[in-house]
């Protein structure tokens, strides 16, 4: 180990490199945005009815600056309002993610152990994802609302509806992608199916699972935001988006700023999964996605 470690550059070097790349990408995106705005305004560019001006395409510094303006006269700063909204949505999404991941994982385990169930159920699981979430959401809200669940929980269910699918599919894929000789090895130890699941199939499937968790993490945030609309929830980012939509023609920066926060929330969910993966998955470097 010592010799391997000695060859590696200091720990801070790759971190610094990553930070530099990140800054460079941010700068490039900023330049693209502002460059297009400048170009569109200078040439009075028209795409259909779309025209580049401060309403359709506000300056980035105006969007970021808006975060630190009062959200209404004598009210708290917009960033404080959005922070609270983001926390609210984060709760819905986190519960939705946990529910969806648990259900998806359980489904994957069951399907991995029975070809018959796989053939019978897989088409319906796939079909469930072809139904638009907006068609399902009102039913979920009514159904759970009438049974005394809080409204935010209905939103979590909608979020879970979006997240269980990738987890189920990848669990199934991961659990069945076991090396056949590893299975023979376990059989030679007369290992029970439960043992094989815990000692072999599950560890093998971890990279697949985390790939699914990454998709599910961002989907859970999107699901929570969309789910807030039919549930008429005002406290989350979905409510904020709906609200600022109505005032777009006067203060477009509010909506853009909300989108920024929503994106940040999705990214932080994604990063949480990445960190969990780093901790849990011990694999050859080239096998880690």
């Amino acid at each position, binding site marked *: 180990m010592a010799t*391997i470690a000695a060859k590696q550059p200091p720990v801070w070097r790759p971190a610094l490199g990553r930070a530099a790349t990140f800054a460079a990408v941010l700068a490039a995106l900023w330049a693209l945005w502002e460059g297009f705005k400048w170009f569109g305004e200078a040439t009075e560019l028209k795409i259909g009815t779309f025209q580049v001006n401060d309403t359709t395409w506000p300056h980035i510094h105006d969007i970021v600056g808006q975060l630190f303006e009062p959200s209404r006269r004598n009210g708290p700063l917009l960033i404080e309002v959005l922070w609270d909204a983001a926390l609210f949505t984060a709760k819905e999404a986190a519960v939705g993610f946990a529910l969806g991941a648990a259900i998806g994982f359980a489904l994957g385990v069951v399907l991995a152990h029975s070809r018959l169930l796989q053939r019978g159920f897989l088409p319906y699981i796939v079909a469930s994802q072809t139904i638009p979430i907006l068609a399902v959401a009102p039913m979920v809200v009514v159904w759970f609302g009438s049974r005394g669940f809080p409204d935010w929980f209905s939103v979590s269910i909608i979020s879970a509806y979006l997240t269980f699918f990738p987890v189920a599919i990848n669990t199934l894929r991961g659990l069945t992608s076991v*090396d056949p000789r590893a299975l023979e090895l376990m059989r030679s130890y*007369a290992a029970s199916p439960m043992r094989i699941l815990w000692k072999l199939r599950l560890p093998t499937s971890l990279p697949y699972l985390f790939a699914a968790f990454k998709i599910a993490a961002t989907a859970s945030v999107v699901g929570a935001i969309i789910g807030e609309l039919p549930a008429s929830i005002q406290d989350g980012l979905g409510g904020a988006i709906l609200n600022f939509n109505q005032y777009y023609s006067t203060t477009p920066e509010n909506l853009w700023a909300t989108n920024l926060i929503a994106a940040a929330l999705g990214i932080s969910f994604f990063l949480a999964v990445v960190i969990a993966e780093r901790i849990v998955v011990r694999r050859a470097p080239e096998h880690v996605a």
Partner: protein
Amino acid sequence: MSVVKLARVDKAFGQGDVVALQGIDLEIGEREFISLIGPSGCGKSTLLRIIGDLIEPTGGEVVVNGKTAHRARLDRDYGIVFQDAVLFDWRTVAKNIALPLEMLGWDRGRRSERVDELVELVELTGFEGHHPWQLSGGMQQRVSIARALSFDPPLLLMDEPFGALDEMTRERLNLELLRIWEASGNTVVFVTHSISEAIFLSTRVVVMSARPGRIVGIVDVDLPQPRTAATREEPRFAELIRDVRRLLRQGGGFDVEEATPSGEEDLITAEEGL
């Protein structure tokens, strides 16, 4: 008492149209080191798996350690080593070796004691905390052997364990395997496609024919024990190689190899020039 007893063992795949093994009779005694050799597709790996109850024979009787092969597997009467080490990437060397011990419900203290012994036996001291991908192929295979020996099974099944290694590593591991075999005192059934490896390691070499796999003959290896690097230089060694090669030719092994010069037969061809 014999450790393995095969009587009229047949194996057919599919609807019985592909006959892999036909009428295999073989008795393997305690402390023997038996090699199974034959052209590719002769069913030697299949035979090994039948002994290990990983494949069921279509006919005949398999007795391992005085019981049915199935019972013997449930009693963990054998350890198995494959051509690839089949180590679990997410486990360290020590934890890979301890895998069967976990299955057997050994407690942590006993496990780590046993792992220490085995790490020493296969000369991997200092690598206990490494992960498989940090080891060379030869070292990985030694971990795999340690894992198979961990619970001290009376029988060790080895399916071309050194087939994927380079010649020098292979010869070194051959010597190590003999040392381990002498130290552990178990019976070994060893599948190989290298004639010299079979002679060097074994007490008896079982020569099999091309499909359908039958036993063409058994060569008693009367080379003195313990074998050393000098064993390969002895005239008797060359004679035994000739004997095995004659049987292989009789079983159609060389005809097959001339028609399809692929990996496995190449080795046999190469050794014909010895």
